[in-house]
């Protein structure tokens, strides 16, 4: 229990408010050396976990952003062809044996390290963040599985590169595609909900210390209300922070039903689709504001 509270404190000083359950899971990832799969709605702070955890452990954060069509060359390694070609031309005058030249051209100097190779060749164990893994396709997922079980990459021209230290792997997913059971089985799992009032208030206080206590409370109460509405895109924590900044910029220090008109001007920071925006008439805003 002390470890958990300790980690929570450290995460907090790194700017991340974690529940005890999350802290316990992070400790467990360290103990078991397994990757952690984090799921949850967009904007609940999945990626931020990796940032904060890297800060706490004083480790490097290596980030691999997944996208549709991500392939091995973009994720693992690639040869620097241009330099290789240049080297070939330059070496033509050289009268060293051919085998030596070839060794030279396929040496690490010409290897472009992409995030995954980078992560396993670090001296000190880094935090590897594989962001939005559901955007990459199944083939890449299979490749990832292989890496996560052996922590080695084989490069035909160079041989097998094994991990010096094991990276701490955090995988996030938005659930746009169902992940394979094999990947899920290898990972610890954590689902992050939208924060409750107390947690979000703590986050606002940490991230926007210039906002007065009363405003922070009202902002969080307002956002919590908005999340309960039927919206296409519910505001995440980032939106809350943006909105707080927008309110401060406009010089609004208190949210009440009289200032509804001015609040509406700032809502573009909170509400991100046209359909949702049409629902926020002055009456609606005034009603929500009155309850804050």
């Amino acid at each position, binding site marked *: *229990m002390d470890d958990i509270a300790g980690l929570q404190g450290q995460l907090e000083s790194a700017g991340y408010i974690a529940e005890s*359950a999350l802290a316990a*899971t992070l400790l467990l990832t360290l103990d078991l050396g397994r990757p952690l799969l984090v799921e949850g709605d967009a904007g609940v702070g999945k990626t931020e976990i990796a940032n904060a955890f890297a800060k706490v452990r004083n480790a490097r954060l290596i980030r691999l952003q997944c996208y549709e*069509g991500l392939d091995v060359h973009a994720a693992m390694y690639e040869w620097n062809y241009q330099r290789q070609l240049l080297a070939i*031309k330059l070496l033509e005058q050289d009268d060293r044996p051919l085998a030596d030249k070839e060794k030279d051209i396929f040496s690490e100097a010409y290897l472009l390290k992409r995030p995954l190779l980078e992560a396993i060749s670090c001296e000190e164990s880094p935090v590897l963040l594989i962001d939005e893994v559901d955007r990459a396709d199944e083939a890449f997922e299979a490749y990832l599985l292989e890496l996560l079980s052996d922590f080695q990459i084989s490069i035909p021209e160079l041989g097998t590169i094994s991990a010096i230290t094991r990276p701490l792997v955090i995988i996030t997913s938005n659930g746009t595609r169902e992940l394979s*059971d094999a990947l*899920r089985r290898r990972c610890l*799992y954590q689902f992050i909900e939208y924060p409750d009032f107390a947690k979000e208030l703590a986050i606002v206080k940490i991230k926007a210390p210039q906002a007065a206590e009363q405003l922070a409370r009202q902002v969080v109460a307002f956002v919590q209300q908005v999340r309960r509405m039927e919206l296409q895109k519910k505001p995440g924590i980032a939106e809350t922070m943006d909105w707080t900044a927008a309110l401060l910029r406009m010089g609004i220090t208190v949210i009440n039903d009289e200032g509804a008109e001015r609040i509406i001007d700032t809502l573009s920071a909170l509400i991100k689709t046209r359909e949702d925006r049409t629902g926020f008439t002055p009456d609606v805003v005034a009603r929500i504001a009155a309850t804050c």
Partner: protein
Amino acid sequence: MLTVAALEQSNVGTQLLTRIAGFTGFLQANGYGVSAADSVDIVDVAAQTGALDQAILRWNLKSLLCNRYEEWQRFDALFDAYFLPPNIKVFVQSDVAIGTPEETTTGDGDSTRESSATPENAKIDETRAAQYSASREENLSSTDFSELNQADQARKVEALMRRLARRLKHLNLRREVRSQRGRRLDLQGTIRQSVATGGTPLRFAWKTRRRVRPRLVLLLDVSRSMNAYSFFYLRLARALCNELADVHCFIFHTRITGVGEALRDPDPWRAQERLSVLAAGWAGGTRIGGCLQDFNREQGARLVHSRTGVLIVSDGYDTGDTALLADALGTLRRRARRMVWFNPLLNQPDFTPVARGMRTAMPYLDLLAPGADLAAIERVLPQLIESLR
């Protein structure tokens, strides 16, 4: 690796550890995808982190044993049921199944007899169907899912779905991948290969359009007016689920329920059992609008993207609010790539879309297709594939 046997010799508390090890079995009985290896893991973890603190044990086991959100949601209740006094094994039902099996068996067996009618000889009188469909009540009688495993039609259905799946494989994307042959030169790859020949590009690398299959979302109406066709479509859905990976199947009547996992179950009898639990309310009334709205809210953002084809199977008899239906269909239509509606009644010669729901839906559809039997679907297949392109 610490085994249960090794732990029993140590004095950490044998009873406690066997109890913890038994937790995986309990979760398995509740439909979790856990294995024997997991029970070794959790005993291991419990021994390392201390099993006496209830909160830590709960958090650790939760992240270790849950694999997806549904399991995550149900975990705490199951944990309490297993570990907390008075330690009675209560099977906590997932929130999709409302009635317990005991409850659902009571009631009339009418629906079972009706559902045995094959689609070929089922010509449902529209007025009768309308009369039946005008109920908001859920049907609590149990449904006989043994029809699902009948062999007579199964092979034909599978063959048709295989054809559909094969045709869907040929839909191309703009994104390109490297390939042996292709239409466009892959410069990067060519230079890469030319390294082997001293910088002279002797062999070319090519790029070709990447092939991609659209995601399919099936929404099957299993209300009473659709009774004669429900099993037929469920069979189609199962065959399609077996052919394609990215198919998501839901049934709806007064509620909407995901049945993808149950349909994919390799054991046909287990699939039957799981379905009969999920299908509480089968052959009851219809609330298409409400169900679609639920779908939009709970699954829409996750499942429906710009390459998703939504296939709705329904006769359009709806007791709900048409404005609600129009609203839900509009939202779904904006998210999805294509929306196709199969209406089994469309085959009848004097059919006009008089049903309220059908009339409301028309503006949102890319294709309205007849679908009373296999032959009708076969005929409409080219159009369907074209519309998913």
